């Protein structure tokens, strides 16, 4: 069983995101890039499969800011190999283009199951799992909360709205978009990450493609207008607490 985990870097949403001069992309110069949280869930699910039934795990990612850190961390957590796909311009890579790059690399690989995050915060032209699967002409499922391999198939649980779960069996090879792993992503000890970095071993493979392929033409990227913005309560924590209690009291939600 060979499991590929497709991971990616993304602007940290906790940071302030500014729009660049083109008005159609974020200013990438000063933002911090972090690993996509749903890809981390995909990696965790792969590690659980490996622990339960044995598998070789290959983490793969496009070359994006600080991606080495993410890939070495994947190795530190238990991935057997990590591959960085180089050759694309830096910038806002469309999901269709990202899928094409991964698909072209997969063309020379032997693989059984590909796991990736259900979404990423800048997915304008759709989510990776379905697009990649359609390009590869293999089955797929998204919003997956459990994946367990059984011979040449994988048993998955997909989450529909409101917490309803549907269970299916999917023939391999298949692509899954992971929403949540069966357990919260594990931490990699810093010493192990350092070890992975020191032994090097990130493979590189080159891919080609246009950044914006398959994406609707963005003509404006902008922060939402603050029309419905909250009235801000300021002052010390004690002042703010008093105001909140007052608001709740006015609604009859605080006695006395």
């Amino acid at each position: 069983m060979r499991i590929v985990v497709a991971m990616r870097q993304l602007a940290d949403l906790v940071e302030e995101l500014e729009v660049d001069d083109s008005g159609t992309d974020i200013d990438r110069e000063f933002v911090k890039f972090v690993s996509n949280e749903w890809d981390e869930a995909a990696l965790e699910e792969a590690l659980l499969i490996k622990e339960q039934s044995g598998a070789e795990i290959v983490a793969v990612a496009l070359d994006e800011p600080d991606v080495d850190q993410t890939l070495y961390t994947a190795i530190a957590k238990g991935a057997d190999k990590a591959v960085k796909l180089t050759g694309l311009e830096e910038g806002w890579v469309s999901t269709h283009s990202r899928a094409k790059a991964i698909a072209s690399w997969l063309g020379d690989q032997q693989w059984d199951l590909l796991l990736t995050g259900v979404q990423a915060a800048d997915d304008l032209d759709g989510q990776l799992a379905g697009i990649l699967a359609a390009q590869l002409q293999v089955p797929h499922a998204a919003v997956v909360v459990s994946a367990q391999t059984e011979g040449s198939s994988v048993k998955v649980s997909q989450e529909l709205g409101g917490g309803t779960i549907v269970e299916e069996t999917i023939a391999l090879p298949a692509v899954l978009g992971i929403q949540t792993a069966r357990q919260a992503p594990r931490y990699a000890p810093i010493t192990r990450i350092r070890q992975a970095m020191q032994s090097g071993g990130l493979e590189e493979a080159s891919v080609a493609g246009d950044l914006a392929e398959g994406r609707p033409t963005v003509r404006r990227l902008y922060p939402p207008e603050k029309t419905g913005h909250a009235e801000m309560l300021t002052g010390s924590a004690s002042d703010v607490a008093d105001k909140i209690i007052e608001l709740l009291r006015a609604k009859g939600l605080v006695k006395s």
Partner: protein
Amino acid sequence: MASDVLVVAERSGGQFGDITFELLGKAKEIASALGGKAGVVLLGDTSGVDALGAADVVYTIDDPSLSNYNPEATEASLIGLLRQVEPRLLLMGTSTYGLDWGGALSVAWDAQLASYVVGLSLEGSDIIATSQLYGGKLFAEAVLDGERGIVTAIGGSFPAEAGRTGGSPEIVATSATASAGKVTFGAIKEPDKSGVDITSADLLVSVGRGIGSQDNLELVQELADALGSPLSASRPIIDQGWLPKPQQVGKSGQKVKPKAYLSFGISGAPEHLEGMRNADLIISCNTDENAPIFDVAHYGTTVDLFDLVPELAEKLGQ
């Protein structure tokens, strides 16, 4: 150029979700401007078709392969129908349906796709979609190029009333397209409804990833106890296993409408807002002044939750 707009109906437990009517209202608006028809695709059995009076046409695909959720079977049949009808636009929700099928359909039908859409309009013959990206921090306005497009929209973005008007649509029964048969349905499991019921509470204290660790939950639990309200949470808190699933607010959790919703350390991602934006009074604490939660909250504060929550608990405990 094609001028019809098709909506994929979403049903759960036999009922159509609001999203179906929201999208149908939009479909009518755009199709009529283009001089085409607003259609609804009804997958599986045809029960409930009477609720779709606002449509010009309802395409039914009543086939056993579609009676249970199955992405492969559904996509095969949808592609078959799309090739037959060739609409200008296909509309779905950014629900599991849209997240699961949208991308694959865009490849197979060779159409551009815009997801997380909160605004959709026609400019001349161009389809303009506004998507909510970066956890709600930025909007992207984009033109769907080409002769066909797919849009997956966030629930609550368009008025549902526009899709609930009466009428007598033409019913067109179509047949399913066979798939490769690689996905086999197993079972469907309804969510656990036991435990704390957050949907009937007048007041909710809700906590998000800003709380940092499971140990810190005690702080907000004390506040909830002082207020006599249940504790609810954003999805990451549930995924960590820190609180049970029935206490999750949002798209994949519970939809709540309390008299007051008090949130601490929740950023306000669209999936969270879907579950609580209709609360009568929303008061949010988040140290990031640009957190999207402040766009739906009535009152907000950037005071640190670790300073604010103990103050509140203490004052209320007196």
